């Protein structure tokens, strides 16, 4: 009741993956909703920066500003990033236990994708989004080759082989279904 559903979800995701960055958190939320049957109160859209939800980013920023989440800034060379964490005290005071089914969805998702880097997830989520979009719209005439070409348009810095491998991996672990 105190936190919005998404805020509570974010606290729970970070609690399970301390030190996670913003990009990875965004992709976790995407996969949770898109591929693991989890509830996320947000629409994801595709941009040049991949799958993104401004609702999730707004809720995350809100939690950081209200000091429920610690965002430790790091600077590597000229690049800035944030490591996210939540303390036990804050979690105890504000977070609520997620329904068992939701927790199981998160466990499955983290079990499968938790070790992936943000870069891996960036590509995997883009391939997933585009493939599912083709399926939902029954664009049967657009085969895998078309999917790879669209992904390449959006993420030109990934090689053709990387895109194909990501697609194979997603088929292999069942996140994408054949046909």
């Amino acid at each position, binding site marked *: 009741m105190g936190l919005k559903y998404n805020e509570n979800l974010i606290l729970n995701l970070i609690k399970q993956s301390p030190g996670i960055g913003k990009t990875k958190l965004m992709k976790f939320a995407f996969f949770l909703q898109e591929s693991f049957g989890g509830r996320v109160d947000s629409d994801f*859209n595709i941009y*040049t920066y991949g799958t993104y939800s*401004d609702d999730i980013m707004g809720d995350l920023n809100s939690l950081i500003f209200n000091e429920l989440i610690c965002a430790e800034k790091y600077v590597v060379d000229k690049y800035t990033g944030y490591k996210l964490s939540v303390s036990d005290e804050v979690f105890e005071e504000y977070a609520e236990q997620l329904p068992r089914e939701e927790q199981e969805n998160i466990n499955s998702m983290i079990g499968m994708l938790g070790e992936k880097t943000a870069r891996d997830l960036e590509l995997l989520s883009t391939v997933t989004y585009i493939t599912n979009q083709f399926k939902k719209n029954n664009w049967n005439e657009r085969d895998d080759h078309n999917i790879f070409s669209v992904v390449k348009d959006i993420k030109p810095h990934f090689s053709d082989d990387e895109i194909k491998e990501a697609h194979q991996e997603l088929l292999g672990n069942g996140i994408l279904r054949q046909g």
Partner: protein
Amino acid sequence: MIKIAARIRCPIHGFIELNEQEREIINQPVFQRLRRIKQLSLTDMVYPSATHTRFEHSLGVMHMATQMFNSIVSDEQNLEKLKIRKDDVFRFRKIIRLTALLHDVGHACFSHAGEDVMPFLAQDHPDYRGGRRYKHEHYSIAAIKVFFREHIEKDDDIRVDEVCFLLGDGKAEDCEHLIGLKGLINGSVDADRADYLLRDSYHLGVRYGQYDKERFINSITVGLHETRDAGGNYEDEYHALAIKESGLQMAEHMVMARYSMFSSVYFHKVRRVYDHHAEKALKEVLKSYKLEGGCFPPPSGDPKELQKYFDFDDWKVLGAIAEGRGDGEDEEHGKVILERRHYKLKETWHGNLGKGDREKLENLKKEHKFHIYDDSATTTWYKDDVFILRDTGETVFLKDISKMITEIGRPTIKRFYAPD
């Protein structure tokens, strides 16, 4: 060169020019309906001059989007970054203008307050996730496909899907060539925001929303943002709309303007409660028209069905409220609006509710049979960050280089209202 068919006077931008196709679109009844949708719903209960409409805002967004687009494509490097061929610039400009013009055409009466009485998404909809409602964008996309298709596609160069793609339509096919321009319509420095800050500020008579529009237009560009993880490993890179470093102060000012407008106007305690009264009165009105569950009909591909949604505008609903159709059996939200007798603020929380606060809230609910709990006034004002393209060529987040932006508050306000 396109012939100018009309010039419309605008207090924010001067004259807004239209070509024949745009004039034809504006003259359609579904577009003219926007004259009867106030931009800020019942904000005039607090700021009496807040009576401007989605119609003039839509024209303004088209104008701003054009100026921003022109500024971006005037730099050949940007064309390269966005993978836009020079030959496509003219065509892309037309798509951007039409998208901006039509981006709000599906708004419900009472603007955003009307979204809470939209029906739940159909199971076969690509956005279906269970328990989620349609949004005004879904109605905009449906209207564009049903009512505006022939007017858009009479120009052989443009497909309706291209316009819908920029509005987030998951069914729009083969439009990825436009992905770099999405930020002009929906992003941290989009044309919508650029117009409404100035327009709302002007009509309300406040100065908070003002920023240097000319500097903004001249500063907009495309940057390459790269990220690294804490170990220094490459994460990702992408092109995004950004502000040149020479416009840094303007960008800070723009974020501050947005912050001030949200904290002083959009989150105003009385304005917020009228959003809830409007939603509840609207629900009763829709019930009185025998609409299932007191909800609007879902967006449909059938013109007759879709028209049932577009038959409702502020005039019709306020007329129904004046006839007493906005009152329910227990609560009289229609009368509240007519007589300006809104529920009064009983409790405010800043920040998130801890265990003690949650108990207090539950007690208040028990104490007041009729109440409104508003927890939606949070950080919607600052969902995403503005990119700055530094003179050195790096693209960074504004908050990472601006102490001012780091320090400003991000209001999280929860409020409990009840009748006196």
